């Protein structure tokens, strides 16, 4: 026993010494691996990771694997529900320009598995080898936590596309004087202010097109998760008597025939249109690959490189990752992708990696012409090795703002352009 312990400590000591040496070395590790990067997922994170690796080092081969031939932005999709956008076309990107302009190999395929040991990604179109893999799969739903859940009847519309269109059709078909029920899951979920923006946009639609209707918001959280004061102000200003916000109401069960939801299995609430946003977890492929941590929901990462702490040479960015103080937003995914790409390129060129610096800016619309924002600049807290906000950089707008709505329009234009050309 003593012997074993001593051996163990010896091993540990040797390990620590080696590691310590590498840590203090002035010269970074000489990279001897190949130059193939594969990116899984063509959304806010994946497109940017692929593009920035190629922008910074065209000698690296980049393959972007995405199941669809297009991507529809979740940010701004609430504006379609509110009737501000006539359709989702302005929020839809394709990958052809990204492929041509940056020499990215875009493959439309379903990823079926990832094998870290053999550095391979299995897909419906064959196996792809990588030296570094970036996984950016967004979210999936913990539907098992809502008994009876059927998104075809009670859409989540939390991945933009057919679900968003279904919810809008249901709103259009609803009779005046009807009730919309919106259920918000416990945080963390994709886009913290999103459910409250959706509340505002649906309320605006009801006010304009369905007189006498209301929206009951059942929030599993004890309070509004993001921009609370501003949303309350906007609802009072524009949607008094339309928005009925109820905190600490966790939906656990639904009845698709009766069109009801059950709060904690007890309190039954009926709706003509029911928008259930289920609790969330990392994208399915992250689970299949073994990238998900002990919480069984999200992926732990090294905050400087976004490399998985569980599997070597695989990086996880965007909603799926545990990115400390950074919210699960499109802008965060964009910024994380650049941090990750920068350091992958550094490693592949035997250069020292760089400390991360990232930004988040999220706009939410309260009415057709007013928006509010939340911002943050992020860095690594070296003592705790977690991502924290730079002091003073996190904050919300002082008031509802028409100018911020104008800037928000330019934000979506810039970020979708960055992702697609």
């Amino acid at each position, binding site marked *: 026993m003593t012997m074993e312990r001593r051996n163990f400590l010896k091993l540990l000591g040797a390990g620590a010494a080696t590691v310590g040496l590498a840590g203090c070395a002035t010269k970074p590790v000489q990279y001897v691996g190949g130059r193939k990067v594969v990116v899984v997922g063509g959304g806010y994170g994946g497109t940017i990771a692929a593009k920035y690796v190629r922008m910074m080092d065209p000698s690296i081969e980049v393959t972007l694997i995405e199941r669809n031939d297009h991507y529809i932005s979740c940010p701004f999709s609430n504006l379609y529900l509110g009737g501000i956008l006539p359709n989702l076309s302005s929020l839809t990107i394709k990958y052809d320009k990204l492929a041509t302009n940056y020499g990215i190999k875009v493959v439309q395929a379903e990823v079926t598995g990832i094998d870290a040991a053999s550095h391979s990604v299995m897909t419906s179109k064959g196996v792809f080898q990588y030296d570094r893999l970036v996984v950016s799969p967004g979210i999936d739903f913990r539907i098992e936590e809502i008994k009876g859940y059927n998104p075809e009847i009670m859409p989540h519309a939390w991945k933009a596309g057919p679900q968003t269109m279904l919810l809008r059709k249901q709103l259009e078909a609803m009779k005046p004087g009807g009730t919309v029920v919106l259920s918000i899951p416990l945080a963390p979920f994709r886009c913290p202010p999103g459910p409250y923006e959706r509340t505002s946009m649906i309320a605006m639609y009801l006010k304009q097109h369905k007189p006498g209707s209301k929206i009951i918001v059942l929030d599993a959280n004890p309070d509004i998760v993001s921009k609370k004061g501003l949303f309350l102000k906007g609802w009072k200003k524009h949607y008094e008597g339309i928005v009925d916000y109820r905190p600490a109401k966790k939906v656990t069960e639904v009845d698709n025939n009766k069109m009801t939801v059950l709060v904690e299995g007890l309190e039954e609430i009926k709706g003509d249109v029911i928008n259930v946003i289920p609790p969330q977890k990392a994208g399915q492929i992250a689970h299949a690959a073994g990238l998900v941590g002990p919480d069984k929901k999200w992926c732990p990462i090294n905050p400087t490189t976004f490399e998985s702490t569980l599997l070597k040479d695989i990086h996880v960015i965007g909603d799926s990752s545990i990115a400390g103080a950074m919210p699960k937003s499109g802008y965060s995914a*964009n910024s994380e992708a650049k941090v990750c790409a*920068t350091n992958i390129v550094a490693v592949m060129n035997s250069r020292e990696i760089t400390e991360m610096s990232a930004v988040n800016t999220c706009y939410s619309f309260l009415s057709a012409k007013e928006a509010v924002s939340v911002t943050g600049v992020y860095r690594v807290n070296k003592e705790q090795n977690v991502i924290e906000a730079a002091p003073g950089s996190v904050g919300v707008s002082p008031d509802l703002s028409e100018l911020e709505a104008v800037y928000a329009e330019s934000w979506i234009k810039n970020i979708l352009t960055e992702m697609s050309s």
Partner: protein
Amino acid sequence: MRIKWSGFILLAGALTVSVAAHAAPPSMEMLSNACAGCHGVHGASAGPSMPSLAGQSKIFFINTMKSFRSGEREATVMGRLAKGYTDEQIAAMADFFAKQKPEYQHTAINPALVAKGKAVSDKACKRCHLENGKEFEEDAPVVAGQWLKYLQIQMAEFSGGKRKMSEKKAENVKQLSQADWEAVAHFYASQKQK
């Protein structure tokens, strides 16, 4: 034995992670790429109300970020974001954007207003905004080729007193009418690549 090994691996893992924190301070690219979500790739804005930062004057960029940070210049999001950066980081970003090729947006503009704007510029602006706004004197920004919408917002903020001006600028523009401000916005937006 088994337990000890897994314990060792865990510890080793933790050490690897802390080593990753040994990294160079954020490079100018690391800092500046984070701005692109709103200001466009390398500061070339694709959004009509958002300024391009590509090719911007270094002094102007630094002054602007610092005045956002102190609250001296009124802002929407930039007052908060600027607080996240040190003087050194702001200077690094200024270097990065100053090095980028300027982007000329060619916004749809009104030719009659462009002509009028040229006359206004010759009278009131060109001593600081040199070469039709493509070059600058001292701390003035490069304004040529910015989006019309962005220029209109700024002109309105200057003329309405929301955005403060230097004494020199205030003196030069004090005779300008609303129509003059609008015309000069069209003039600068109309500028094409040198």
